[in-house]
């Protein structure tokens, strides 16, 4: 038992930090810090820098163009990106779809998709959720029927992040209607410009635009777009969802909040925030920092495999706390800023700020509202608690 970062880890952290400091465009960092959902045009330049450095895909195997980093190195990279307001580039493609194609895809699929994903020329969205199947993938209804050399897909997906700007969807569809609910699923790559694909944005209460409904009507895709073998979609989906077990801890985002909040408090003290209130907000910041310090080590324990058979439970635990702490962080920021977060700011920050709003205000309410979704997606808190109970105590 040796609980310390190695010298190599520390050197790696410095290397990442130096790279980000040199290469991250200042305006991108500013927009990322606001917290609105940025479009491809905004974040693509960063992906190209990462690609040039060989760091485009931290979670892919090295032989497919990934970095080959250890889990601890990936953790450090993610944390430093979070702290420096560097965006997570195309999370679904890089952290979920990519590893699935590397692991299960045919050489032809790998040839076709992996390189463009690395260079930022190919975005994916993830077509899992459906209107009648929130956290319950076994009840998916979208069907893919083999017809000659094609699959013909019919169905509806919902909560599809980035569908409006993705090139492809990785679609979980039922290919064997007679099999048991989990056995008849397959994963198929669907071009978003295929005839029969309709994307309808879903307005969400945070006022940002990021999730969609996707309607699939007689969508025809070549059979070669099937990943792996027919009806192994459940296995692939579990691999995909399990691949980023620690992502839902959001430690990068949390550290970004923690780093920013003391300055916000100081600023607001010059704009009417009283010393008693400021002391209370500093106290809340410290309590959150203490919780996040523990959360970071919970993540490290999972990454280092310390948890052993308890891995599922540990991953659920950090997802629950990650969402909870994000809400606390965002709530604290909006409390510090007080009435200044009332205006509806636009993701397009070309509009002038209202007279009462400092540059730190835009995005703060949006993020607070959005993090309520973090208690839902990827399995609600209640489902995570069920997982923990079943894994450890039943």
């Amino acid at each position: 038992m040796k609980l310390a970062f190695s010298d190599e880890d520390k050197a790696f952290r410095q290397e990442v930090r130096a790279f980000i400091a040199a290469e991250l465009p200042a305006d991108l960092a500013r927009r990322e810090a606001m917290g609105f959902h940025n479009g491809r045009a905004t974040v693509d330049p960063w992906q190209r820098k990462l690609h040039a450095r060989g760091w485009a895909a931290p979670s892919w195997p090295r032989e497919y163009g990934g970095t080959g980093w250890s889990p601890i190195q990936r953790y450090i990279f993610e944390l430093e990106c979070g702290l420096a307001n560097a965006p997570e580039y195309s999370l679904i493609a890089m952290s979920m779809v990519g590893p699935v194609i590397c692991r299960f895809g045919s050489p032809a699929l790998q040839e076709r998709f992996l390189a463009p994903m690395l260079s930022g020329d190919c975005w994916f969205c993830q077509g899992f959720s459906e209107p009648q199947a929130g956290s319950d993938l076994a009840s998916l209804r979208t069907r893919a029927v083999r017809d000659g050399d094609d699959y013909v897909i019919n169905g509806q997906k919902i909560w599809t992040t980035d569908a409006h700007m993705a090139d492809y969807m990785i679609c979980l569809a039922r290919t064997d209607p007679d099999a048991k609910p989990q056995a008849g699923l397959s994963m198929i790559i669907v071009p978003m410009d295929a005839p029969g694909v309709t994307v309808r944005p879903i307005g969400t209460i945070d006022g940002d635009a990021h999730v969609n409904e996707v309607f699939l009507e007689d969508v025809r895709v070549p059979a070669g777009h099937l990943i792996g073998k027919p009806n192994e979609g459940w296995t692939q989906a579990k691999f995909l969802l399990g691949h980023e077990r620690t992502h839902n801890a959001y430690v990068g985002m949390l550290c970004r909040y923690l780093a920013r909040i003391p300055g916000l408090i100081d600023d607001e003290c010059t704009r009417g925030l009283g010393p008693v209130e400021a002391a209370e907000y500093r106290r809340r910041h410290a309590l959150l920092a203490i919780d996040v310090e523990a959360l970071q080590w919970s993540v490290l324990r999972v990454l280092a495999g310390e948890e052993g058979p308890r891995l599922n439970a540990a991953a659920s635990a950090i997802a629950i706390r990650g969402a909870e702490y994000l809400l606390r962080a965002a709530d604290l920021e909006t409390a510090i800023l007080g009435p200044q977060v009332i205006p509806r700011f636009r993701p397009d920050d070309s509009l002038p700020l209202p007279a009462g709003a400092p540059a730190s205000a835009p995005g703060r309410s949006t993020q607070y509202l959005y993090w309520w979704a973090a208690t839902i997606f990827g399995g609600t808190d209640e489902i995570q608690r069920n997982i923990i109970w079943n894994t450890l105590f039943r």
Partner: protein
Amino acid sequence: MDFTASNEQEMLRDSARRFFADREGDRHASAWGSYADLGWLALVAPEDAGGIGGDIEDILILAEEMGRALAHEPYAGSAIVAMRLIDRTADGDARRELLAAMADGSIRVAPALYEPGRRYALSPSMRATGDGGGFRLSGAKILVPGGGDADRLLLSATLDDGTIGLFLVDPAATGTTVSRYATIDDGAVADVAFDAFIIGSESLLGRIDIEAIDDALDDARLALCADALGGLERAIAMTSDYLSTRSQFGQPLASFQALQHSLVEIFIDTDSIRSSLYQAVAAVHDGDGVARRRAISSCWVKTFGAAKRIAGTAVHLHGGIGMTTEYQVGHYLRRMMVSERSFGDVEHHLARYMALST
């Protein structure tokens, strides 16, 4: 002690509920004229100015329904705060005529009290410098509720002698810049800037001190608490319905004890807000100024210390659909975020409560 609503109060509640149900599809059109027709503006106005001078209980019954219905009219600002301030500050015929015109809806007045970078401070840094027979106004007011739609602005400014004057000005006049914008809960506010704007002496309604301004806000604060209460009760009812009708893993959501208990928890919190509102109303009737202010801050802390968590839990219990703008429950969460920082926030009122407790 009588907790039962009178017949008149039941009628008021029913008519409000019917009114909002009827215009459900048309929520964003202005209803200020209807508010006047229904007597809801007169309810706040004093009897000697043609108003009804309604009990605080009556006003809160209305506010509860406005919250349930997510009404966007600036009732707390343009009815309660504006009338209370004018009632305390203006005199004689000017007072009576203005209040009567506000009560019948012919003049809509928006209170402009807050300033950029000054949080909830009520002491105006805006100056009204004597200029000939009138005044020269310089400075800005922000987050004026309904400020883009009002006929007149009621604003506070510091006079040359250091006292505070309350002015009634026309936002359409040259020398004022009105910037209207939306709030996160679909409300409309405005920032207003004055650049050496010249007004006549008749614009000065009277002088007022900060404590009196704060007192004028207190009924509006209770109205926002009642508004939140109405909204939260509705959000809970929606959640209860949703859990009963929706299934997952082959079982109705309502059959899961963890979800049952989450809903019960926010029910208890919401019902406690009603109790807190009642203690504040009792203090209003009791007449002691310190006890009244303390009780109102108590109610504010109780309400808005819990409101976002309650509404957010209702969203959470709905799953994804709760996050969408097409569905109503998430709108309550946004409304709580705005209300809780409208006339001071939780920390502001906790500090006031503590200062008044010693």
